[in-house]
């Protein structure tokens, strides 16, 4: 697998704010890669550096082996970016917008591919409608279409489903997953962690302009939390201090984190030995949200940095 995107020691400062503080990443061809982090973590700045919208103070970035500064034409041809802001040119229809965008990338007579994108994004009936007359969701679809007109090998989606209804989200992900299966590298930033968990094979988490976690999604999930056993007891006070120390109490449940499922039996035995009666029991699996919260609060961050 070749390298689709290479980011090396990238630093970017805006005034006194260090938006990117030595970010290094490599994303392989054909990956579905997630870029997560709270607001202000540096995700959009990093994407903007990759797209040439922001010039880093230090470091190098390349797309499909092309340096984004020195070989910007090839780097930009290889990249399709769906911007976070819902922007549009109010003078043109959807088809005009896509034809013009194709032309910027040096492509004439692109209607066959434009028709295919329109069909996949359920925009065919809106092809001749002026951009001003589209709903927010429809405008978002056109932004995705604009990023795809030149069939870029690397597609960057910067929070593409923010404020978008469920139907479009599902349709959009089906289309993007298909593109990924066909070999396109996809980089996704999103606030919907369940989306990242479902879609991304590998995830980087950014905080204060630094990569604080970088691993495959299953490894991140396994490394951070594993499972948890939730117990509601007949009498909460019956739990001995040694067991209380390893648990947290929330909403009437004692929550015991488990590294592996085979710890359940010994835990239940200890609870029975203490003379506690179990009224309710639930086994939960950690999700990306737990990992995210853990990383952002510094838990285990040092080990992964």
């Amino acid at each position, binding site marked *: 697998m070749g390298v689709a995107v290479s980011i090396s020691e990238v630093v970017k400062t805006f005034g006194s704010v260090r938006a990117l503080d030595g970010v290094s990443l490599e994303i392989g061809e054909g990956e579905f890669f997630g870029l997560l982090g709270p607001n202000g973590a540096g995700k959009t700045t990093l994407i903007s550096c990759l797209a*040439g*919208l922001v010039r880093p103070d230090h470091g190098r970035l390349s797309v499909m082996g092309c340096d984004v500064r020195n070989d910007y034409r090839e780097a930009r041809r290889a990249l399709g970016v769906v911007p976070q802001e819902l*922007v549009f*040119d109010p003078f*043109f229809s959807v088809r005009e917008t896509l034809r*013009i965008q194709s*032309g*910027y990338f040096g492509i004439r007579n692109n209607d066959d591919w434009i028709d295919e994108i329109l069909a996949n994004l359920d925009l065919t009936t809106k092809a001749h409608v002026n951009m001003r007359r589209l709903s927010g969701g429809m405008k978002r679809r056109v932004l995705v279409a604009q990023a795809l007109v030149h069939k870029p090998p690397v597609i960057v989606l910067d929070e593409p489903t923010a404020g978008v209804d469920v139907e479009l989200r599902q349709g959009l992900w089906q289309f993007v997953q298909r593109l990924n299966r066909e070999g396109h590298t996809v980089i996704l930033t999103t606030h919907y962690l369940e989306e990242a968990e479902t879609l991304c094979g590998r995830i980087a988490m950014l905080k204060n302009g630094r990569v604080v976690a970088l691993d495959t999604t299953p490894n991140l999930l396994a490394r951070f939390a594993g499972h948890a056993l939730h117990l509601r007891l007949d009498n909460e006070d019956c739990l001995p201090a040694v067991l209380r120390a390893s648990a947290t109490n929330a909403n009437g449940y004692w929550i015991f984190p488990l590294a592996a499922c085979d710890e359940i039996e010994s835990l239940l035995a200890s609870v029975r030995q203490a003379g506690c009666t179990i009224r309710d029991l639930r086994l939960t699996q950690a999700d990306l949200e737990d990992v995210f919260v853990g990383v952002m609060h510094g838990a285990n961050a040092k080990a992964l940095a």
Partner: protein
Amino acid sequence: MIGFQTLLYKEVLRFWKVGFQTVAAPVLSALLYLLIFSHVLDARVEVNNVRYAAFLIPGLVMMALMQNAFANSSSSLIQSKVMGSVVFILLPPLSYIEFFLAYMVAAMTRGLMVGFGVLAVTSWFAPLTFVAPGWILAFAIIGGGIMGSLGIIAGIWADKFDQLAGFQNFLIMPLTMLSGVFYSIHSLPMFWQKLSHFNPVFYMIDGFRYGFFGVSDVAPMTSFAVVGATFGVVALTTLAMLRSGYKLRY
């Protein structure tokens, strides 16, 4: 090359779609200027043995041409910056030279269309001659180019519409109105005559007018040299701004 052609096409299509506002309206404004000024002054004033209405027409044509060339590139850029759609031209592999040429030629195109419209409408009101059409065309094209480039500078520099309005009202308008559109500078007191020679727009109007009547305040070659040098300075400044990514790429 396709990128440049597309950006040029998009910029022309943009103003053409609102042609009533971008082409027809300035033609009407120029016509009103002519009707009012010629009604008041035509019978009383002659400039260089030319009737005042006829003298005024080339000035109005050039003024409308320049103001609309400036308005085209500046308004397009400020709108796309404020609305965020400028990202659509920053993401593709367009060079800063293609960017510059597309915006400048589109501005020039609108300026020439408006100028031609003003000429077509106003020429019914006074007898015009075309002594040196080459000079007319040369000054029209280069004047449109200068103002189109200045429009790019203003559109990139301004962060808000009122800043652009300031650029237009406090720089472009005075330079244009005090350039000899409505008068020959020989009718001015010596101080203002001398000051007018520092206004490059004066040379654009004077040279353009020479193409119609064969008379001017300054020799057309001198005017062309000044206008050409002005174009060189403005174009190089614009290119340097675009190359550096000033206020476009952070």
